[in-house]
């Protein structure tokens, strides 16, 4: 059996929202801070960084003051508080004591903001990444024969699926 990967049959076009973020990162005056924050991961899915998840939007450094701009995934997501705390802790541990985290609502977070690496990390971790195609691939056995059990899974961002071949349930990261 050929092991399917997430984007195996998809022409890799960068979604506009991801592209805009990437340009911001590439033209940043403080690339070392972006690299540092690559260590900060989603507390619920501890394999994906805030950058790859699309939560980290911008880092602005003025003298000693650092402002980090993030976008919440779901309105009531309790992980946002933990993410803010982890950002401040990571930066202060690296010698930047003055950090403010700002929440930006627009443009609204979208699963299009998740990077290609992030999608692969989700899949490897056992969570089917968001897909506009109707077919959701089982992250355990790569079968395409899967069915929706519930629109809402263990967290607001996920739906619950079941694989009809290996019979295992799995989480699917919903399109938003």
């Amino acid at each position, binding site marked *: 059996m050929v092991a399917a990967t997430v984007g195996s049959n998809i022409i890799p076009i960068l979604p506009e929202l991801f592209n805009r973020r990437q340009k911001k990162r590439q033209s940043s005056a403080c690339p070392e801070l972006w690299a540092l924050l690559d260590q900060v991961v989603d507390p619920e899915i501890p394999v994906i960084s805030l950058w790859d998840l699309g939560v980290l939007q911008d880092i602005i450094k003025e003298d000693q003051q650092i402002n980090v701009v993030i976008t*919440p995934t*779901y*309105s*009531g*997501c*309790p992980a946002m508080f933990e993410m803010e705390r982890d950002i401040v802790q990571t930066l202060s541990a690296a010698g930047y004591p003055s950090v403010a985290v700002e929440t930006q*609502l*627009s*443009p*609204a*977070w*979208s699963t299009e903001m998740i990077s290609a690496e992030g999608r692969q990390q989700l899949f490897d971790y056992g969570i089917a990444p968001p897909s506009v195609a109707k077919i959701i691939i089982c992250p355990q056995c790569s079968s395409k024969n899967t069915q929706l*059990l*519930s*629109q*809402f*899974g*263990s*967290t*607001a961002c996920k739906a*619950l699926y079941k694989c009809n071949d290996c019979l295992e349930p799995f989480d699917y990261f*919903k399109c*938003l």
Partner: protein
Amino acid sequence: MMNDKQPLINYVIALGDDSMILGQRLSEWCYHGPFLEEDLAITNVALDFIGRAQMFYEYASKLEEGARSADDIAFLRDTRDYRNLLIVELPVGDFAFTMARQLIVDLFNQLYLGQLAKSADPTLAAIAVKALKETDYHLRRSHDWVLRLGDGTDESHQRIQQGFDQLWGYVSELFVMTADESQLLAEKISVDRSALRDDWDTQLNSLLNEATLLRPDTDWQLSGGREGLHTEHHGHLLAEMQFIQRAYPGLKW
């Protein structure tokens, strides 16, 4: 404290109150859902509404220049100061009643937020765009449930019909403009609720029809939530929601 932002503050808090109270009501289903998946789904929806309330209250707090925090607005106001619509404060009832209410509100929210997304106020527009995406999922789910219950067994059909019948008198309040909303409409900040009625009726009628349910024929109508005149249930809800902050003022998580 009155200032020229007062109509906007009142408006933002009222929108927050609708979400806060409905989120609190839905969270009562936690551990009581008919099965595990539904328990998870309903509490996730509750969380979306509470998150939405938080965004509105944060904005109101900013407009008040920090005179009150978002938490103060949620936990330190009494029932007469709450401005939510009556329909969201009614007790959860049985599961069919809860789903009938969700369908009524989700359908309304989809129309309302679609308009609010075009608000001249950028913060309200941003909140609406975000909330609208979540509402699409909520509506898909409440729609599925109303179909399943309406077109299900005799028992489920009777219960969901009863849910709509009991809620019908509270529907008209969804479409009533407050003085603040009318004033803000002239500045293209708020949404004309009354103009949404025809679309809402058309869509709801088709959903009821699909679910083999009858459109209720109720002539009584209640309103007053926007003036702080609530049902007897409201105080009980606040008593539970606000207990910790009232008993231990300033307590932090």
